[in-house]
């Protein structure tokens, strides 16, 4: 559906060349919700805008629904954009138009006949749950309501793809939940491919099927959300996963424990839905001469099911046993990671 092939984007700024996106290869499947996570400046915003041609690559290709975005003539590009909806962090609604008129703008741009516009606007307002606010101006709406208008506007021309640029970053947690639920719903009901960028792993966890992690213009890790959470490879991915699953004083506690029990080892165990119910630690204690003290644990829900994480302090007389215990636990499909100090 969307394919990035060796895409690089460079800017000239005050005689300096800045590389925003470097050698990106990505393939986004039809119907999936694809998240791109990275800190600000990682290049995710530029990457997203290359899908609808708001930014063009310096080299490489972006193929969207079989068409090379860069080579499209202005008119075809505009036609293509009508099939790619986009929503924004700051909503970008026109203050001079009412809710209904804001949604209608997308239809006017697509030269929809006047009599059809009103019907379509009514449908869209129902879809995003804004009945009764048709005649309100954006200044009279809450942030969540504004984003609903943004979503309705983006969906007006029955797009195949929806691009979301930090769509929940300006919203409070409750509203974020509601908007994410709406987006999931739209993906399921309408089968629209959603590509979103965010700097919050929470959003990836709740919304995405697959995720790409970006750092300094590169995509450093790609995979389905469950795998990424269970088994993050890159340091930056671990940081994002950590942010989404741990308490803030976790690191401090680990330090303290390491000092207190220098002969012990700290392990972080990651497991998914199936393993949550198995008494793995209990059986390990029976089989080996080993004690586990639970330091911290959590279970988080993703679209594909629950994932668990448990940090334990392992103490034993015999260091040989540790390797055996590790092998035993990993045989149960639980990832074991030694926490180093």
């Amino acid at each position, binding site marked *: 559906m969307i394919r990035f092939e060796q895409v690089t984007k460079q800017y000239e700024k005050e005689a300096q060349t800045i590389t925003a996106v470097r050698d990106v290869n990505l393939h986004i499947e039809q119907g999936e919700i694809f998240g791109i996570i990275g800190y600000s400046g990682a290049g995710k915003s530029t990457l997203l805008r290359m899908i609808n041609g*708001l930014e063009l690559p310096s080299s490489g290709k972006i193929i969207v629904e079989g068409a090379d975005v860069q080579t499209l003539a202005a008119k075809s590009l505009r036609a293509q954009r*009508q099939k790619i909806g986009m929503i*924004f962090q700051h909503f970008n609604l*026109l203050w*001079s138009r009412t809710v209904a008129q804001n949604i209608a*703008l*997308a239809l*006017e741009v697509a030269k929809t006949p006047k009599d059809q516009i009103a019907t379509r606007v009514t449908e869209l307002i129902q879809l995003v749950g804004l009945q009764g606010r048709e005649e309100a101006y954006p200044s*009279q709406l809450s942030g969540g309501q504004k984003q609903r208008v943004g979503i309705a506007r983006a969906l007006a021309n029955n797009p195949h793809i929806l691009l979301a640029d930090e769509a929940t970053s300006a919203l409070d947690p409750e509203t974020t939940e509601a908007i994410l639920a709406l987006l999931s719903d739209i993906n399921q009901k309408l089968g629209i491919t959603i590509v979103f960028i965010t700097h919050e792993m929470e959003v990836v966890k709740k919304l995405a099927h697959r995720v790409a992690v970006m750092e300094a213009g590169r995509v450093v890790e790609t995979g389905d959300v469950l795998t990424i959470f269970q088994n993050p490879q890159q340091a930056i991915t671990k940081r994002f996963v950590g942010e989404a699953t741990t308490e803030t004083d976790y690191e401090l506690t680990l330090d303290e424990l390491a000092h207190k029990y220098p002969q012990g080892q700290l392990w972080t165990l990651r497991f998914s839905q199936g393993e949550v119910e198995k008494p793995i630690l209990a059986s390990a204690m029976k089989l080996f001469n080993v004690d586990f003290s639970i330091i911290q644990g959590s279970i988080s829900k993703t679209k594909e099911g629950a994932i668990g994480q448990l940090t334990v302090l392992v103490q034993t007389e015999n260091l040989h046993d540790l390797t055996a215990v590790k092998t035993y636990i990993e045989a149960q499909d639980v990832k074991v990671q030694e926490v180093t100090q």
Partner: protein
Amino acid sequence: MLGNIQWDKMIVAFGETLYMTVLAGVACFILGLGLGLLLYVTDRDGLYENKWANAVLTTVVNLFRAIPFIILIILLLPFTKTVVGTILGANAALPALIIGMSPFYARLVQVALREVDAGVIEAAKAMGASNWDIIWKVLIPESKPAWLGGLTSTVVSLVGFTAMAGVIGAGGLGNLAYLDGFQRGFEDVTFMATALILVLVFSFQWLGETVIASVDKRTQSQKQPQKIRKGLAIVLTGALALGTVVTFASQFKTSELETVTVGATAVPHAEILTAIKPLLAEQGIDLKIVEFQDYVLPNKALAAKELDANYFQHEPYLAQQIAEHGYDIESVAKIHIEPMGGYSQRYDDLNTLPQNATVLMSNAASDQSRILALLANAGLITLAEGVDATSATFTDITSNPKNLQFKYDIEAKLLPTAYQNDEADLIFINTNYALEAGLNPKTDSLVLEDGDSPYANIVVTRADNATEAKIQALVDALRSDTAKQFIDDKYQGAVLAVD
């Protein structure tokens, strides 16, 4: 207290100011909006970024904004003549008003467009909007309060500029305040004209603010103007539109009578002409007086057939203008003289002037010849053989027994001030300035010109219409007993009718 106000004149002037402001305002709105949009879209990162086009537009806009309005009027005279067909009247003021103010408004439009949220423009692009859609559906509506505010400022400035347009006889309140109020010393006229200008300015300002408040949906409170305010705004708009239309219609009103159009300066020429208006009306001739604030345009307008005649100058000035511009115009009659007079705060009689007395006069060469001839006549100096009041210079003085010290580097209009400050033993002042300064030439002067002077004021026409019956009728009326009686009564000897 308001006794000098002629209400019919005041209403016509109000209509003219309104007419010029509204028509120029509409044109400035259209031109300025277009120009402002071009400035914006060709700018860096604009929809049609074009460095060269932007540089050219910016230069043109800055250039026209930098030219003082009064100079722009003069520079545009040939253009005005071609486009409007006349260099006089309210319509002739329009090109200068429009060309002068459109660049100003264009800048305000550009600033307004720059305020539009870049995110909203990006959203429109992402929707697949064409540049045309972005301009009309996003940029213009989203910047509406700002460009409406700019339009209000522009229209208010236009009201002020129409006053300056009085230079070319455009009429209007500013011109009335200057010619009838200031030049004739009728303070009530000045006051009323100013009050009406303020009424116009406040009306436009208030209308602008009302419209902006009703379209601005940016804030949550959305304090909409009350119904009564909206109603008032509609009534006011209607009234202003009506005034404009009525004045517009009157621009094309043709008199059934034969018209003779005469250019004149306000005092005393226009006043004398006004006095003989009934005499000509009896003969079925409608006398139209166009008042001028300067001495160059009346001849230019006459030569351009905008006027049938003018009445503001004397022979030597006419000769000089013909020599400089090659006009085919000529004097048809001497009407009156405004005698040059010598005044002094220190002495009552020319003969009591001491040795080495200082004599102050204007820096105009023609005035100097005239004064030298007058002093020679009075026996204070002797001039060389063959020179007269049109040609004498200081080098022609053959004897100066009192060794008079001549100072002649001052603007004519500053002479009354010099007199009040007692800056010389003898000060020569042109009668019009002496009158404005409250001096009575007849009783206050030590020496005064008489009707034999070549500096009598004349009626001038073109060679091609000098013999027309209506010109003859005009001259006859100006030399009639009615005119002479008026001059004697009104000016008490400060202006002398020529026999």
